[in-house]
């Protein structure tokens, strides 16, 4: 099994032993009022946005007697003028302010954390509320910024990732990534494999010219390499859920399916490539795909067909993207040039507005290795 047979996981548990005991038996963290207040503070921050960090102090005793309607009282607190004009407030069990001050917090993460922890003594619990609704707490002089299995830093990095609305920005950055040798090399046949290809196919020809003329050759089945590369880039840079290939009822598969973090809307990306790949045996070119008819009209029809099918299956598809990796030998115009509604059958044209052809993802083997 995943955990009990996993020495690494058990080693991690042993390391975190103290944190686990504190979390499950310190008389505060495991209680209902504490967990409720933690959730309420984050929700209030989401509803009442502001750019300042806030410190909310409450005694353990008051916390244990947290009022029943704390959700309403907390909203009142977040809109209270004293709260808005003071960085630090001390509240009672009904979340009314008992004391406040506007002293600045120390500069620097570590100094600030030490300061917050120093306030969390004498049975006081300190909640630190960030503008992005992350809530950390300090208690018994300790900093509880991290979960047992995640750190505050990784949570901050995650919250800073882009949302589905920013997909195109992320893909523009990915285009830049594709110009880096470490990224593009994986798509192309290596120099040594090209030399082998040369000696098998046409040893009489000049090797250097052969290598130059064939450096654009893609590895066999490049679609899988492209799909995984772009999928990983999206996963690592966006706050969305990238699920596995979705199988439609007719057994076609969507290459990449994306849903926003809430899981409300569906987007998908169909991946195609144009250029030339090497054959499976490595001694002759394999497939060559050109912009027409591969992209226009075939891929356009395919994507709009998928949109139609998803909508028929009551799936809330917003947009179907067509992403084309352009590995053609020459620098040619975008494969989407001239795509129009007339490329799809009449019965599917009603969905054409949900189709987006992304600008080509150019991959060039500038410095082969």
């Amino acid at each position: 099994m995943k955990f009990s047979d996993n020495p690494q996981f058990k080693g991690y548990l042993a390391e975190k032993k103290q944190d686990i005991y504190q979390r499950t038996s310190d008389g505060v963290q495991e209680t209902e009022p504490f967990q409720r207040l933690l959730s309420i503070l984050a929700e209030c921050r989401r509803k009442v946005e502001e750019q300042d960090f806030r410190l909310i102090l409450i005694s353990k005793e008051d916390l244990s007697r947290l009022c029943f309607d704390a959700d309403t009282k907390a909203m009142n607190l977040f809109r209270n003028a004293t709260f808005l004009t003071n960085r630090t407030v001390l509240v009672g069990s009904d979340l009314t302010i008992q004391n406040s001050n506007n002293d600045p917090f120390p500069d620097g993460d570590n100094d600030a954390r030490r300061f917050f922890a120093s306030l969390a003594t004498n049975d006081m619990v300190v909640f630190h509320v960030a503008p992005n609704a992350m809530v950390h707490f300090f208690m018994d002089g300790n900093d509880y910024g991290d979960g047992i299995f995640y750190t505050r830093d990784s949570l901050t990095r995650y919250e800073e990732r882009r949302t589905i609305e920013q997909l195109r920005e992320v893909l523009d950055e990915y285009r830049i990534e594709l110009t880096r040798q470490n990224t593009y090399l994986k798509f192309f046949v290596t120099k040594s494999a090209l030399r082998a290809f040369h000696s098998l196919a046409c040893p009489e020809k000049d090797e250097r010219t052969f290598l130059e003329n064939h450096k654009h050759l893609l590895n066999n089945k490049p679609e899988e390499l492209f799909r995984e590369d772009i999928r990983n880039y999206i996963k690592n840079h966006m706050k969305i859920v990238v699920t596995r290939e979705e199988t439609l009822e007719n057994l076609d598969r969507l290459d990449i399916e994306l849903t926003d973090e809430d899981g409300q809307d569906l987007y998908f990306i169909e991946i195609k490539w144009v250029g030339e790949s090497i054959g499976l045996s490595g001694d002759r070119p394999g497939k060559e795909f050109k912009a027409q008819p591969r992209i226009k009209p075939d891929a356009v029809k395919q994507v709009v067909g998928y949109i139609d099918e998803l909508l028929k299956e009551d799936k809330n598809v917003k947009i179907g993207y067509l992403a084309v990796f352009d590995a053609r030998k020459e620098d040619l115009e975008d494969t989407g040039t001239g795509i129009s509604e007339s490329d799809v059958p009449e019965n599917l044209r009603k969905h054409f507005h949900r189709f987006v052809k992304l600008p080509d993802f150019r991959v060039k083997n500038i410095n082969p290795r």
Partner: protein
Amino acid sequence: MSNKEELMLANADIMTIIAHAKRIGWDSVSTNTLQRVVYLMKVLYSFCHSDENEFVQYHFSVTVFGPYSDLVYKSLAFLLSSQRLLGDLDGEVRLNSSDGIDSISEDKKKWMDVILLILGKYGESKVFSFIVNDPQYDQAVKANISSEINTDLENDTLKVLNDFKKAFEETLTDTSTISEEEYISLYFDYLFGQIIEKK
């Protein structure tokens, strides 16, 4: 149990869940979240209880947006049409009446609070990620089954949770302070770590 009786019970469940969700600051809840929350309440139930699953009447199938139960849908439709809830079936719903709230067993209420408090720590927007990472749901998606998701005692989620607990028991000298609910909470902490690190 007749369809009408099932619907009446579901109405009480849904009203109670929405009322208790408000207590953790969720003033309104999306209908998708409600489907997901009821699913988690059902699939995790037997980890903490030895009696019959209190959510036995809910039958879930796989959709792109998570588990779906027709009973939850029908109950929401009924509660909206009778104005006990405000909102719409494809969006957010919120309370407009106290009818039916807490008219369920104490144990069931407590269990609802356990799950809501765990989810509340991460926020409503993360519930979908937990669903996608749920072993039983994942298994159902992989198998591409359109029939009911297995939520009985042999379900994959319970197997994984039991193994998670076993790792704690075999590593820590004393686990007597860790309740079953805490194990679920720690497991979600683990899942959340996996989600944000995109492991």
